[in-house]
């Protein structure tokens, strides 16, 4: 299915000069419109009713407008400077940037951004009359930019990633991007208005569409590839700095910690689903097993086992219990393929929940107090560090959830380490081989059953780990927290983000967990919206938002262009062999 195009190549050939002018004018007009009032009163979004004083959202719009104008202008500036011989090195680089493609993406993004804002204004202030004239000017400007950029001829594909750049430039770029992301996330999270939050997401979406289409994204990912350790460490550093941006408020840190628990579990599931290719629909049970283990061994007055080992030991036990459950369920079922495993794991998830409900002293031994679960789990105390008390660092108060956030960050680091190290090892190769052709893998001496079991039990172990912390974060553990729906959401995070990648899954998990927290509208219709999202993803991008390259190939086996592209990318490991 191809979307019919209004802007045919013939039309583009005829009007591209006009298009460029219209696009530039549109972009500039949008930038100017940021100084005009968009809304009738200040009650909608962040106060957009002033003349001459752009609000933050208007300011973000201004940046987007300037980018469109700049991209469109580059179509003239570049050849002109080239002829005159100005700034040769800069022009050489500029020639590799897909300005036109970027401007097209930004044209769409700009339009989506302003439409979203106007709709939110209309909803919040009850009626389109509340949109001030500046808002309409901005809409017209965005429409001009959209139509103008559509009329441009896309031209050459960007090849910025081939530009050699100094290491410090790349590292600075990575650091700047991460810092920008931190600021944006911190700002977005501090907004209690769902409309503002959504607008910022739209802004980030437009910006990343531009970055990807213009080829700047390819350069960044190349840089990230080259300075892997820098990237990983600075990502964790940025995540580590996040609590310091919250001014001691625990509201966002609670969400952030929940997101982190969810994301860590999703990355664990990604080992099972993304690396080994086993469909596990009951993964939440392993998280639950870890949580219940930690709860029953905690200092809670409702804990049923009177043995209180230190938390490190509890975590290990939680992991081991989850892993043995994984072995128990895996060893009879992993001999069969795909669908059967999905059904068995689905059933296992339910069995787990019902069993936990029944261990209440009436239907069975009293381990979990049945459906009321184990409440009042006290805060952790590790090496004299009390997780329940706020601590003041550099004058900034870090509350209870910040403490758990740091602990989860550590666990996330462990899970990511396990994931990537396994992926790039003999075991990871075995998993890929099994996914590609199980029979051939077996005939080449790969221990198919053992590797599947390892993935299953290993994934379960990590989930148990995360579950042990979750028990203390949540204060209480009840069976109905661990329903099938949660497994489905975990799987959705993996599929949405990109099977087999870490960043993709973290992104997917963050979106799935954050949106319902921040947008009441989303949380009310969350099943409907996520269902819709999954259908759309499966149709247009089955490999996920940030796909693993090999996975992308498995989904698009007939896409020759992609095959070529990936092959050009792959041999970096084998460079010395090719010589």
């Amino acid at each position, binding site marked *: 299915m191809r979307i019919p195009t209004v802007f045919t190549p013939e039309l583009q050939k005829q009007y591209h000069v006009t298009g460029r002018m219209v696009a530039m004018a549109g972009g500039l007009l949008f930038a100017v419109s940021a100084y005009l009032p968009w809304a009738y009163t200040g009650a909608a979004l962040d106060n957009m009713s002033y003349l001459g004083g752009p609000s933050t959202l208007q300011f973000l719009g201004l940046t987007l407008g300037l980018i469109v104008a700049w991209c469109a202008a580059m179509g003239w500036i570049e050849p002109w400077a080239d002829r005159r011989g100005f700034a040769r090195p800069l022009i050489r680089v500029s020639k590799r940037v897909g300005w036109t493609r970027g401007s097209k993406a930004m044209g769409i993004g700009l339009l989506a951004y302003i439409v979203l804002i106007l709709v939110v204004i209309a909803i919040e202030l009850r009626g389109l009359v509340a949109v001030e004239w500046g808002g309409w000017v901005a809409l017209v400007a965005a429409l001009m930019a959209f139509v103008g950029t559509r009329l441009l001829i896309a031209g050459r594909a960007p090849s910025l990633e081939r530009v050699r750049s100094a290491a410090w430039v790349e590292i600075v770029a990575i650091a700047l991007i991460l810092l920008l992301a931190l600021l944006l996330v911190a700002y977005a999270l501090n907004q209690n208005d769902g409309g503002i939050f959504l607008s910022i997401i739209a802004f980030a979406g437009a910006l990343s569409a531009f970055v990807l289409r213009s080829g700047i994204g390819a350069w960044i990912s190349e840089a990230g590839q080259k300075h892997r350790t820098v990237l990983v460490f600075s990502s964790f550093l940025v995540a580590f700095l996040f609590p310091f941006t919250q001014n001691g408020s625990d509201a966002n840190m609670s969400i952030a910690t929940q997101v982190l628990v969810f994301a860590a579990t999703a990355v664990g599931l990604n080992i099972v689903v993304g690396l080994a290719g086993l469909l596990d629909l009951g993964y939440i049970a392993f998280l639950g097993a870890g949580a219940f283990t930690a709860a029953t061994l905690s200092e809670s007055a409702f804990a049923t086992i009177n043995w209180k080992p230190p938390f490190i030991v509890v975590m290990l036990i939680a992991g081991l219990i989850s892993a043995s459950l994984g072995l128990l369920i895996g060893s009879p079922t992993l001999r069969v393929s795909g669908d059967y495993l999905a059904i068995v794991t689905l059933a296992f998830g339910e069995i787990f929940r019902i069993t936990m409900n029944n261990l209440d002293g009436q239907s069975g031994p009293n381990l979990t107090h049945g459906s009321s679960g184990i409440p009042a789990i006290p805060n952790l105390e590790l090496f004299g560090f009390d997780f329940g008390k706020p601590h003041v660092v550099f004058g900034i108060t870090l509350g209870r959830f910040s403490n758990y956030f740091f602990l989860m960050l550590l666990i996330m680091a462990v899970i990511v*380490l*396990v994931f990537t*190290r*396994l992926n790039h*090892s*003999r*075991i990871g*190769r*075995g998993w*890929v*081989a099994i996914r*590609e*052709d199980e*029979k*051939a*893998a*077996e*005939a*080449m*001496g*790969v*221990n*198919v059953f053992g590797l599947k079991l*390892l993935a299953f039990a*290993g994934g379960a172990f990590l989930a148990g780990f995360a579950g042990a912390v979750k028990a203390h974060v949540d204060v209480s553990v009840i069976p109905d927290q661990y329903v099938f729906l949660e497994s489905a959401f975990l799987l959705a995070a993996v599929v949405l983000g990109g099977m087999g990648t870490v960043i993709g899954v973290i992104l997917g998990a963050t979106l799935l967990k954050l949106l319902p927290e921040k947008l009441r509208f989303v949380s009310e219709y969350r099943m409907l919206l996520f269902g819709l999202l999954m259908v759309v993803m499966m149709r247009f991008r089955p490999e996920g938002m940030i796909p693993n390259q*090999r996975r992308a*190939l*498995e989904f698009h*086996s007939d896409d020759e262009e992609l*095959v070529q592209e*990936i*092959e050009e990318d*792959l*041999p970096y*490991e*084998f460079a010395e*062999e*090719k*010589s």
Partner: protein
Amino acid sequence: MSTETVVEPTGHTVGRETILAARNVTMRFGGLVAVDNVDFTVHSGEIVGLIGPNGAGKTTFFNCLTGLYKPTSGEVRFMGEVLPPKPREVVVAGMARTFQNIRLFPNMTALENVMVGRYCRTSSMAFTSILHGPKFRREEAETRERAAELLEYVGMKGQGGHLARNLPYGDQRRLEVARALATDPKLLLLDEPTAGMNPQETRQAEELIFKIRDSGLAIVVIEHDMRFIFNLCDRVLCLVRGKTLIEGTAAEVQSDPRVIEAYIGSPENEEGGAHA
């Protein structure tokens, strides 16, 4: 190669180590006798051909040899041991195979394909992989080096970075051989190694197989291309309707009228032989 036995590349079988010995192998499926009382021996450093018209029981016999089927009666011994009926353990014991229709891992690079072949000869498990212990690093480096060596050995030097699916047909066949060799086999089973190849590629495949034989491995080839088989093999076993029709040197089998009859059929044979 792992075989220590020194072999002159002349093709005599006397005084050689016996790699594979099948005695009185019979395989029944219900009332159907697919393989009937077949004897078969392979020595190190020799190439043995297995031929027969379609439905002669070649594949069944092949599966008995590779341990996929347990024969109804009789036994197959590999290096003096009865093989466990698990494909993986057969590989570990030292028997590697290629497939009639190529079964590479298409979305892995050529080098990675061969590295998968090294799986059963390496042993770093989860912990050392995660911790990047010295054993893991040494093994990874060795695996990579060995895989690159094998690619060079089969004539694919410098192509390690290509995805298997993008390789030309002949190279895919060679890659399969390299992957099989990566498991350090003593016996290599090639299932129609020249199917779909042009004459030039067939000749290259022949050279490669000789080269592997000269390194001391035993090779069993199933093939339909008669010229290829008789050029290549020291001995040929011809199966017809599950029974040994004849076993002997290439020249003996080639000139035997019954072989020709089995393939082409004789006027008085109303079943037409080939469809037995």
